[in-house]
């Protein structure tokens, strides 16, 4: 009795009210839960559960060991695939950054029709199919394609060079495909820098290039980091471009996974490959989770 007496009835109904009802500014806990339930069910069953299941297979089959992972890391053929994937991802990230920063910078400086032109050039590929763009590169780089024609016209080579189905083709096409993911975050970061900073730097005696180096560049680094991480992570697991433009002798991890599943039917080993990729990517994402605003990747609009 004394316990109940110590709790005034108003408090009990208050607790109930807080659980069941909205107090105006905030939806009730129960309401929130109901609204979020479909989201959590979907992501739980169609995203988390299958991944966990796949990772489980990688360590449980054929026997519960880490042998599959041992094979990935110790077999020189597979280790080479991992290293190649890493190298291509780094290369693609570097190239996209090199190409994207000036474009993003030009976007912040441009006005009127020029801005519309640049934005259209950046966005059109972003909204057009990855397959269309990959097909375009297949056409450009084929034996009698425009690039080979150009090389011959300039006299750089007397007969067509093999361009398609090489690592070079993969790097160039992936750079092309992933550039919007670099430009948009950098543009977002640059656009949020008030022009007053540059004016202040100028008034304080900095030349334009100096002001850029000392003020603009450091302030835009978060955007550069977001873009780089995003491009790097996407490049690591990229499938379409390496599968269509790459050489079967020089596979990347995604094409190797596909081969293991579709041709060798070695599920546990493919699962281990996916496991290596997923764990590596998650690790990077966790390390940079504070610095990277993933929700800005669609153009950094606030």
């Amino acid at each position: 009795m004394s316990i109940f007496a110590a709790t005034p009835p108003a408090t009990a109904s208050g607790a109930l009210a807080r659980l069941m009802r909205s107090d105006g500014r905030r939806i009730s806990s129960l309401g929130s839960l109901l609204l979020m339930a479909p989201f959590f069910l979907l992501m739980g069953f169609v995203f988390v559960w299958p991944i966990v299941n796949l990772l489980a297979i990688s360590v449980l089959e054929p026997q519960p060991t880490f042998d599959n992972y041992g094979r990935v890391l110790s077999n020189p053929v597979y280790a080479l695939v991992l290293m190649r994937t890493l190298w291509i991802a780094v290369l693609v990230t570097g190239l996209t950054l090199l190409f994207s920063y000036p474009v993003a910078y030009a976007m912040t400086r441009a006005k009127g029709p020029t801005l519309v032109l640049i934005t259209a050039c950046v966005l059109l590929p972003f909204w057009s199919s990855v397959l269309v763009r990959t097909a375009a590169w297949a056409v450009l780089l084929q034996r009698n394609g425009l690039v080979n024609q150009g090389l011959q016209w300039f006299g750089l080579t007397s007969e067509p060079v093999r361009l398609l189905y090489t690592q070079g083709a993969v790097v160039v096409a992936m750079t092309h495909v992933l550039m919007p993911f670099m430009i948009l975050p950098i543009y977002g970061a640059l656009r949020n820098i008030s022009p007053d900073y540059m004016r202040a730097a100028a008034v304080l005696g900095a030349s334009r290039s100096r002001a850029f180096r000392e003020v603009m560049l450091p302030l835009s680094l978060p955007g550069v980091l977001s873009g780089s991480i995003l491009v790097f992570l996407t490049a690591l697991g990229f499938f379409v471009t390496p599968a269509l433009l790459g050489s079967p002798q020089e596979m990347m991890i995604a094409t190797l996974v596909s081969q293991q599943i579709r041709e060798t039917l070695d599920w546990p080993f493919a699962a281990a490959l996916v496991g290596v990729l997923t764990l590596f990517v998650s690790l990077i994402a966790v390390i940079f989770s504070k610095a990277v605003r993933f929700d800005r990747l669609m153009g950094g609009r606030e």
Partner: protein
Amino acid sequence: MKADAPRVASGANITIDGLAKRFGQVTAVDHFSVDIAAGEFLALLGPSGSGKTTVLMSIAGFEFPTEGSIRIGGEDVTYTPANRRNLGMVFQKYTLFPHLSVLDNVAFPLKMRGVSKPERHKRAEAALATVRLAGYGSRMPNQLSGGQQQRVALARAIVYHPRVLLMDEPLSALDKNLREEMQLEIKRLHSELGITVVFVTHDQAEALTMANRVAVLKDGRIQQIGPAPELYERPANLFTAGFIGEMNFLPGRLAAAGKTPSIKLDAGPEWRLPAAALIDTPSPGQSVVATVRPERVSLGSEGAAGAIPVRVQDVVYAGAAVLLIGVADCGTELRARLSGVSEVADLRPGDMAHLVVPPEAVLLYAGAAAA
């Protein structure tokens, strides 16, 4: 609530009893009790974080208190959802629905109550006329000025003749002239409608001008509640004394208690005061603080009885009066608002001045002055 309800609706009384609201370890409101009479205009005044908004939100139903009860018109509404309390509310920002016309904004509460379209448009027009915006109904909110938008919000809050009108710093977004105009407008509406108003503000002048009673809050507790003159003339404690209007705080020690208590000021003189000056009941020897309003301080001649010698720090011309800022030997700063410009004409920073205070203008509190 009927369409043909009399123009002057009577307000409802509000009884708040032992209200407390805690967010984890933080206590926003503690032991808050007040009886608000029907038709009264009560202002909740306090610095930010004093809990005034939490009290208002609890009355509105946007916060559920941890303890205590709220009764409106005798009915316990402590945990009633906001939309079933039938209150009118005006928010700090105008919160007009941007996608609805002015008329539809004002008619919104009637729509929620199932009033037919022609009827609610008629009544919304009438409410707009009450706030002197007749004919503005077809405009969109963004086509109105800030003051007009807040008047629309007011019309929306009163359109269904609620018995209680809650206002959460409704004028803080307006500039000074508009604010004064709106203060009068709200006062006029209050007397016209006879509605009970609870008004939150951090602006003490606003609270004193508008309200029948003002409740001063600090750290979630009521410091003092009373009509404006009482708050100004006889603050119940040092916080209220400092929060409402300008005040000088003179630390000292109580020399003698009794019918004519006397104090020895750190700044020099010993004062004999009427018994009414004692707000608290300190015992002799205890530290006390004597307070006096700057406008009650005047300039005396050297050697005048009870005069405090100060070194002039600044003389500030302020239109109707001159503000003299001096520092006593003990380091206490003293301000005097002097109406005669001529008497301070030759005072320069660094000069000595003697400030005199009539004993009946002094109030005495126990304790040390807060910085």
